[in-house]
């Protein structure tokens, strides 16, 4: 257990550093893919060896700066494990997305991607609040360089905006963690097991809630803190957007579950309605804007914003169905975002643009790609038998317990979601063909990437029980902490 856990963090880190130092540009993507596949194997082994009914597992601990609460404690429970699996599943595909037409200097790109993965594993495996913070900030650094060097138009300014926005949330989070940590009786420990039981006065919780939540709200992002997101997602190279939307966004959800809900339950109770309303506003607003987009990549960015709004609302319903649904949906969303962005990237490669106006009638010339697009889209609008349907069903159940009206708003966003996705499909794939250039249909690599992702969506849509089993015990434990 200890070896597996440490290997998950260290393997991508060392491989990433090796790629950055040695720069074997020709072999870079193979090395990175191999590393990430091994990482997936390690994560699956971790999952196989874990009995979900047991509590959290501490796999490794070592002192770092114990006087200020920072200790290296790695371990996991069901929620962590889900996030680790999510990261491990998604990354091979993110690396694969650069297979056909790699960015310049592939060794650096893949090295940075692996470093990000390592930091993300660290985030999800850390069992100490400050260790979590270390990895949380650390994951930003490789992404900063990915965006800065390989981003599109306006990358210098947008990257800075993204970084500063996120770091602002990060430092207030650090402050909040320090404050919560110091409310514990001495001798203190910032390990989750101890920190979750901290008792803080209700009136303090009211402001501490925002201090702790701000960073995660920016990360997700929650309306109205989202202004960095569409620009960043659009400007970033496809692989960068996949990392941001597929995995890094989930750090926000995970952080709320780990810190906000257990540490400031009274604050959550006090602000719950505000957060849910803001999230739902964001959800509808983003869906509407997605509908009006002419750029497919931007459309995916806004649709991601819309989905995450629903997840955030369900999370703050703070009941079994809501939290389980939101966590379940993180996995579904990660897979969908990566698949959708892969398609966007594929279209960009073939057409040289992501403008919907330049598309149309593609189905006639690329029938297989169109079919794959259709399947991914079915997952995205959460038709029954897809993973999204399970997650949304649970989330609506959770929201319904709080108020039927909010469920109603949530359902409207789903309808809007179906509308903009179908509309996008219509504009890109159906209709009259624009130009008569020869377009290459989906090839082997496209299938290798999209088919497994679609398969996961459908398998977990039909048989979600393994994931739900994983979440059952920790969510119940969390709810006893809240109440």
């Amino acid at each position, binding site marked *: 257990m200890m070896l597996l856990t440490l290997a998950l963090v260290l393997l991508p880190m060392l491989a990433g550093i090796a790629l950055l130092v040695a720069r074997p540009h020709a072999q870079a993507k193979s090395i990175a893919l191999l590393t990430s596949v091994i990482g997936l194997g390690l994560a699956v082994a971790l999952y196989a060896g874990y009995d979900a009914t047991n509590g959290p597992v501490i796999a490794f601990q070592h002192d*770092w*700066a114990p*006087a*200020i*609460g*920072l200790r290296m404690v790695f371990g996991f429970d069901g929620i962590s494990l889900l996030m680790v699996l999510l990261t491990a599943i998604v990354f091979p595909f993110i690396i694969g997305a650069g297979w056909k037409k790699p960015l310049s200097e592939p060794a650096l790109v893949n090295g940075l991607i692996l470093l990000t993965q390592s930091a993300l594993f660290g985030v999800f495996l850390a069992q100490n609040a*400050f260790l979590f*913070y*270390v*990895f949380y*900030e*650390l994951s*930003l*650094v490789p992404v*900063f*360089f990915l965006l*800065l*060097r390989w981003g599109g138009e306006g990358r*210098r300014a947008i*990257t*800075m905006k993204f*970084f*500063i926005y996120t*770091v*602002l949330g990060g*430092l*207030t989070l*650090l*402050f909040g963690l*320090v*404050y919560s*940590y*110091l409310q514990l009786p001495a001798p203190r420990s910032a390990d989750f097991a101890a920190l979750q039981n901290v008792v803080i006065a209700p009136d303090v919780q009211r402001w501490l809630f925002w*201090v702790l939540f701000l960073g995660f709200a920016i990360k997700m992002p929650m309306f109205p803190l989202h202004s960095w997101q569409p620009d960043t997602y659009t400007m970033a190279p496809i692989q960068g957007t996949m990392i941001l939307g597929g995995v890094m966004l989930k750090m926000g959800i995970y952080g709320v579950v780990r810190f906000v809900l257990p540490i400031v339950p009274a604050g959550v109770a006090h602000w719950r309605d505000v957060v849910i309303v803001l999230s739902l506003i964001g959800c509808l607003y983003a869906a509407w804007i997605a509908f009006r987009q002419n750029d497919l990549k931007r459309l995916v960015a806004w649709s991601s914003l819309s989905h995450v709004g629903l997840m955030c609302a369900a999370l703050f319903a703070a009941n079994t169905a809501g939290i389980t649904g939101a966590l379940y949906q993180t996995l579904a969303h990660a897979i969908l975002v990566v698949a959708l962005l892969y398609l966007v990237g594929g279209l960009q490669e073939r057409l040289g643009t992501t403008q919907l106006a330049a598309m149309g009638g593609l189905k006639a010339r690329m029938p297989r790609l169109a079919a794959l697009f259709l399947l991914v889209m079915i997952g995205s609008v959460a038709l029954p038998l897809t993973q999204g349907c399970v997650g949304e069903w649970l989330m609506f159940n959770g929201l319904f317990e709080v108020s039927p009206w909010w469920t109603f708003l949530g359902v409207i966003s789903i309808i809007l979601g179906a509308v903009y996705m179908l509309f996008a499909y219509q504009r890109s794939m159906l209709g009259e063909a624009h130009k008569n250039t020869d377009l290459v249909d989906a090839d082997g690599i496209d299938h290798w990437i999209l088919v497994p992702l679609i398969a996961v969506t459908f398998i977990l849509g039909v048989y979600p029980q393994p994931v739900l089993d994983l979440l059952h015990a920790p969510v119940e434990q969390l709810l006893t902490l809240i109440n």
Partner: protein
Amino acid sequence: MSAIILLSILGVVLLYMGLGNNKRLLAPVGILGLAGAGALSFLDRRPLPAWGHGAMAFDDLSMAFCVAMAGITLLLFVFGSDYYSRTQENVAEHYALLVFSLTGAFLLTSYQNLLMLFLGIEVLSIPLYILAGGKKRSYRSSEAGFKYFLLGSFATAFFLMGIALVYGMAGSFDLKVIGDYAAANAEHPAALFLVGMFFIAVGLGFKVAAVPFHFWSPDVYEGAPTIITAFMSTVVKMGSFAAVYRLIGVHITALPPAVERTLWAITILTLLIGNLVALRQSHFKRLMAYSSIAHTGFLLMAVLSGDALAGRALFYYTLTYALATVGLFVVFTVAKRAANGDEHIRIFRGMFKSKPWLAAATLIMLLSLAGIPPTAGFLAKYQVFVLAVQNGYVWSTLFAAVMAVLGIYYYLKVIRETFTTNEEGAVLQLNATNTAVIAVCGVGALLLGLWPMGLI
């Protein structure tokens, strides 16, 4: 004490060496002497009786500061062997004055009465007035030296007046007596004592470049020779903060409320002004000057937290800050040469392409200054936050956390330049000594973060 004696002798020896024609020997002799001084400070660690009728006393903290300052000066001497290789005249004086200034910094770590504090500050400062104007034929350098001297002596006058007033009220120069006096009259401090403490705060505030006594620092940082700027922003800062901590962190802990409020106001202002103005700087040395002011704010916060561990936090913070700063000034000098004397941050452009390892070290040092994990600068800031919150300064800490975001922004601007490609591709020339200094600083800034070696 033996270290202070050794340093004084070393300074004189260096000065005399300037008479002969052996410029190349200066740096090695200085390095040997500094290593000796560091070692002697370390050996003096065993509890010694107070020195000179209780004027000086050495403890673990003063030992740590002395060793670190000797180490940083040593790094600067290694850098100096290259920096001064193009200058012909007065090199020996420069080295000697640096050593004299360091002697003053040593005094500041272990003084036990106000006169020794004054002596330490003057011994630290007077060589710097000369050194800041060290490039005799440069208008800006002369301006820096003159400005520093004028404002410095003005602040010194306040400081001396403050000592006189405090002496008048407490009846002694001895810190313990003054501390007891302050504690006994904490409720209703005498007006003269208050004024005296304010004046002392002005003098020390000037030394650490706290707002509103900071106006000298950007101009002096900009005008002074780079190696002197590096010395001022590292060793001088360490020494001054050791002094501030000994004064109000160890001895006069029961500050009159008015003084304490004023000091907090100064801290908040320092954080605000330092960070805000640094945002707009694109001249590297001015950027470092304002960011140095911002760091002063964090350090003051640690002192004012009044925590028993504040001394350790200060030491860790100043040490990591100094390591990163020295390394960056060496990188800056290298880049400036390649850019024919330009000092804008754009001179960092293209570094990643031509010298990736240099860019990596620069990245680590900048991240450390910005306080991004897992570098040492992160642990330093985080420890300050813990100390301040632990002692109830919650809102100030939140404010400081937000200010740290601004800090990240302007350091990121430099990082962005470093990793932006440059079509012209200026050729950076790195020799062995500079590489060694940068390597020590870069590795130190990372290693102290990953493994704080019991310093935290």
